[in-house]
């Protein structure tokens, strides 16, 4: 069964074998408002844990997207580049951002469970 974890930067990350899929949470999209631009990392590039791996912009402001784990970018979701509003519609399923071949699975350990993230999101937005 695949495991989903969450970061303090409001990314979700799903581990499936050696592969992880990363996107931003519904809570993040609610804070950002209407998303009108998305920039993704280059396929084949390497990204480091907590480093910048993309950008989302709402009508109001730009925000960096971070990667919660290190790895090689093996796929990116062109759909959200072509139509960034999909990120508001379905952030935790079809509007994923990028997939990595994970470098070190232990980097997943420090991330939050769904329950922990929900509590964190509630406390930080209050």
């Amino acid at each position: 069964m695949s495991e989903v974890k969450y970061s303090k930067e409001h990314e979700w990350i799903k581990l499936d074998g050696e592969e992880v899929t990363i996107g931003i949470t519904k809570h993040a999209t609610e804070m950002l408002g209407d998303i009108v631009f998305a920039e993704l990392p280059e396929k084949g590039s390497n990204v480091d844990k907590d480093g910048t791996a993309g950008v989302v912009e709402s009508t109001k402001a730009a925000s960096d997207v971070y990667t919660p784990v290190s790895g090689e970018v093996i796929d990116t979701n062109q759909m959200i580049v072509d139509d960034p509003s999909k990120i508001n519609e379905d952030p935790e399923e079809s509007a994923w951002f990028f997939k990595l071949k994970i470098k070190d699975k232990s980097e997943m350990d420090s991330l939050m469970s769904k329950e922990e993230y929900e509590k964190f999101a509630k406390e930080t937005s209050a």
Partner: protein
Amino acid sequence: MSIKKTSLNNLHIKYGAKLVEFAGYQMPIQYKDGIIQEHKYTRSHSGIFDVSHMGQLFISGGDDLTNDLEKIFPADLKKLKTNQSKYSFLMNNKGGIQDDLIITKTSDGFLIILNAACKYNDYEVIKSKLDNQYKLNLDESLSLIALQGPEAKNVLNKVIPGCDSLKFMNGNNYVYKNEKVYITRSGYTGEDGFEISIKHSDAETFVESLIENGSKLIGLGARDTLRMEAGLCLYGNDLDNDTSPIEANLKWAIPKSRIETEFVGSEVLKNQFQSGVKKLRVGIKPDSKVIARGNTKIYNDKNQEIGKVTSGTFGPSVEHPIAMGYVDNSYSTVNTKIFLEVRGKKIPANICNLPFYKKNYVKGEINV
């Protein structure tokens, strides 16, 4: 200083506003629908904007008032008919803009609508320049509500009959619930619309009746995207103390009859009229989907810095990133290729005409 609330604060909360501090007031940045839907609803139907944070300065008393105000503002106030409005500026001695404002001639003087963040300073400056000879009232007992969009006239006419006969940049007195309201036909969205000055105690019921007739509350977020598409300046972003109306490409707001006369900043302006300016405000359209926001540096094709962006966003009606900013005058011609530095990359863009969105009163026309 504690944060101020407008008379519509409870209504903002009732309709799900996300509230932020703006110019010392708690104001709605958006409601439940979000900026894009709010923007589009204003363009297709009508939107209600709480602009009660703006200053409503009434000046009256004395036969020389018009003359004395012309020593401050570069507008042709002598030619202004009662209830007619003009866009103008409060300038400093260097010709820099301290505030941009709308002056309306009233039956006993003038009403000046001031930007929220500038209003107290404007009041002091104007009062001292008038040598305390006149009665100045920065009236904080009144709310100010804007209704904008193609349906604005129909909606408002149901609530306050007769106001659809107002002409653009004209105002008049009307009655709402046995109280006097002052309405002007004006706005900040590129749409037809009105601004209604009304007692605080009547503001909430008035807005509820606009909502009952089909309008929706719109936040400051959509107000910003609407004004950018319309090519209109925001004081503090696109206009400031170091920028003159000529540099801001607002020469049209200074009538020819005033160029040879004296007012605050007139020497600088006269000189700029004759010799031109070094920098000029232009419209900017990025080639790609990348958004260049305020303070983005602008370069020419030789990698030399030639200016900076002062406002930029995604235009929901033109469905493309839009921006405006100041460039060295030699790069201000439409279709000049420029480059915007966003996150370390040089993004190609073109100088373009303003506005990005132009209303032709039958249907919206897109200019990008």
